[in-house]
């Protein structure tokens, strides 16, 4: 097992056993679930909306080359600049170069998972450029020195009391400050930062190919302030964020908002098409878009899992995932947590190092059911597992165990013998938590005297059981019902 996998197991086990953590996430997700249930009723047909959204993304991803070039042409025509970043390092270097050439001292950032992915804040710190997160959740993360707990809800793991305590330690506010007071403190701090920043860095929810625009959706208005006050704006976006046409937003905005947190549309939806023009009163002097690959073209080349690039980063699959609900976001150790993170991380980063994540799922399929762009998420977890075995990331003993198991399952005689051994082991109490950790905290079933196979041969095929069985079975696994027919 790699050190990363080991760390995951330890962190996940710790969170899974923490009742306070579970209660906090359950409360947050219950609120989310109720809002999303209401949100979906605003669609005449939610399933149809998903199908159409998936179709738009399918069209985009399958013609990504064409749409990317169209976007670049339009963006340049609008006066913006486009940088193609093959790696995270390329993206960081470009952004730092722009910042240095303009003597940037302070950067304000609107919420962006893509900049988390390229570890931009750390790069700014090394370059001694101050960076301030302006989304309230991200701001709290920054103060606490933590990474976001969730793609959409960065501080899902914190209660109001936790946040009040954080502000108390940082700003000396009352330890029991109300939510309004806390938001007021953050607003006052951030207003000052917006007014004194030289550069704004954002992500983009969508890149629009036919008009060469980007969109930013926020509920706090911090996105707008990040791009309209500073002199320079840099938007960092994965190449999969494209949609072909401006009119596609009519569907994509409400679909994203409904899945993200149950809103009809996000409060502030901003369309940006280049820097300030001569006739305009606000906007940045320079407008840059960094198109980030960072492994995405590897996923694009994989026809089987290409649809994972449909992802809108709405976070719905995290909220639906019973694994995420129990282990939380930090356990994963990835930028993108939850089911979609477990699908894409082995593609975007070192496949071997992250090959444990696709196994950390019961394959329940709740993620695929809620995905607004119909990514076959749990199916791709299976594909990733198969790929891991093909690439020999599996353990030698496990490979041999499955070979032996296959040998045993290839004839009924071997199968019967293997079954008998398993039942004897069970009866003798050999299946201890050391052999099988499942039994830690659970009782194994009591092994029955006979198999179905034997019953069929002795009784069943001759027409037993008859229609009259009086006795109620006490529970599955006990032998009352079976013995009745002996």
């Amino acid at each position, binding site marked *: 097992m790699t050190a990363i996998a080991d760390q995951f197991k330890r962190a*996940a086990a710790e969170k899974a056993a923490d009742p306070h953590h579970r209660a906090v996430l359950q409360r947050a997700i219950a609120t989310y679930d109720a809002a999303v249930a209401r949100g979906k009723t605003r669609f005449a047909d939610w399933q149809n909306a998903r199908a159409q959204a998936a179709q738009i993304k399918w069209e985009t991803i399958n013609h990504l080359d064409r749409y990317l070039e169209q976007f670049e042409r339009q963006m340049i025509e609008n006066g913006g600049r486009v940088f193609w970043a093959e790696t995270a390092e390329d993206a960081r270097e470009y952004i730092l170069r722009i910042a240095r050439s303009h003597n940037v001292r302070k950067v304000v950032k609107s919420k962006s998972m893509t900049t988390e992915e390229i570890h931009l804040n750390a790069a700014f710190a090394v370059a001694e450029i101050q960076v301030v997160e302006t989304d309230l959740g991200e701001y709290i993360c920054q103060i606490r020195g933590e990474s976001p707990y969730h793609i959409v809800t960065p501080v899902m793991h914190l209660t109001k009391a936790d946040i009040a305590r954080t502000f108390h330690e940082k700003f000396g506010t009352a330890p029991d400050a109300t939510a309004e007071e806390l938001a007021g403190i953050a607003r006052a701090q951030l207003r000052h930062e917006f007014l004194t920043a030289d550069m704004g860095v954002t992500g983009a929810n969508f890149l629009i190919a036919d008009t060469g625009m980007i969109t930013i959706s926020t509920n706090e208005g911090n996105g707008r302030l990040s791009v309209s006050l500073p002199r320079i704006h840099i938007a960092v976006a994965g190449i999969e964020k494209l949609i072909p046409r401006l009119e596609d937003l009519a569907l994509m905005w409400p679909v994203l908002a409904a899945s993200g947190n149950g809103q009809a549309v996000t409060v502030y939806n901003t369309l940006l098409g280049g820097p300030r023009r001569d006739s305009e009163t606000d906007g940045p002097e320079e407008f840059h878009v960094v198109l980030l690959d960072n492994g995405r073209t590897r996923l694009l080349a994989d026809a089987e899992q290409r649809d994972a690039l449909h992802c809108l980063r709405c976070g719905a699959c995290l909220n639906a995932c019973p694994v995420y609900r129990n282990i939380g976001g930090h356990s994963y150790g990835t930028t993108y947590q939850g089911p979609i993170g477990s699908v894409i991380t082995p593609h975007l980063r070192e496949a071997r190092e992250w090959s444990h994540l696709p196994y950390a799922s019961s394959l329940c399929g709740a993620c695929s059911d809620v995905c607004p762009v119909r990514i076959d998420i749990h199916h791709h977890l299976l594909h990733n597992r198969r790929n891991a075995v093909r690439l020999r990331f599996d353990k030698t003993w496990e490979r041999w165990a499955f070979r032996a198991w296959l040998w045993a399952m290839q004839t*009924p005689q071997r199968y019967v013998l293997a079954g008998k051994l398993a039942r004897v082991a069970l009866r003798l109490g050999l299946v201890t938590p050391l052999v099988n950790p499942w039994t830690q905290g*659970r009782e194994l079933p009591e092994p*029955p005297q006979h198999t*179905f196979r034997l019953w069929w041969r002795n009784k069943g095929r001759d027409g037993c059981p008859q229609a009259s069985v009086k006795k109620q079975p*006490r529970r599955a*696994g006990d032998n009352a019902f079976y013995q009745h027919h002996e």
Partner: protein
Amino acid sequence: MRVALFIPCFVDQFFPNVGIAMVKVLRQLNVEVSYPPQQTCCGQPAFNTGYWDEARQLARRYCEVFADAEAIVSPSGSCAAMVRNFYPELLGQATHVTSNTFEFSEFLVQKLGVSDVGAKFSAKVTYHDGCHALRELRLKNEPRELLRNVQGLELVEMSEAETCCGFGGTFSVKFPMISYAMDDVKCESIQKTGVGYVVSSDSSCLMQIGGYLRRQKLPIKTIHLAEVLATT
């Protein structure tokens, strides 16, 4: 109607009553049943762990064993889904064997058009949706319809009915703490209903849930849908 029984390996070995109960219900409905003795395992443990080459050999084997069957019925949503939904990908095509493999409640309600089998079971129960039956085979109403027609039975829905119990085959061994937490959430929801029984269409889920309930010495029993329907 003639059907071949597909009794999954762990049902055969550990929960034979479930298979026996299914035979009884089918015979009461005048269905002729056969049990091809060559059958072993559908290959799901290997498939779900990434060993597709190993699973493929068992998939081919299954298709040979059941080649002559008109319909194949299994008391497991999970194993039926493995055959119907995943064999086509594994083997490169769907065949009459893969398309005609059904889960028990699905077969009764959709194929036979029966939703009342004349069972009597006086108890308050809750139904746990096994993930494969629910999300691979899309069986939500079939088992409930059958349960509602059981005399004396009161069905109480739990809030987490559709939430995974945390079994997931080798997942529960590889990540026991996560699996246990999921079991815990599930059983807490079951307890809140005040029922005496948890019913499901999958013995693997019931083993996971029952193992927890028995360790905690909770007065709630697990029972397979087929066993409820076989009680008169």
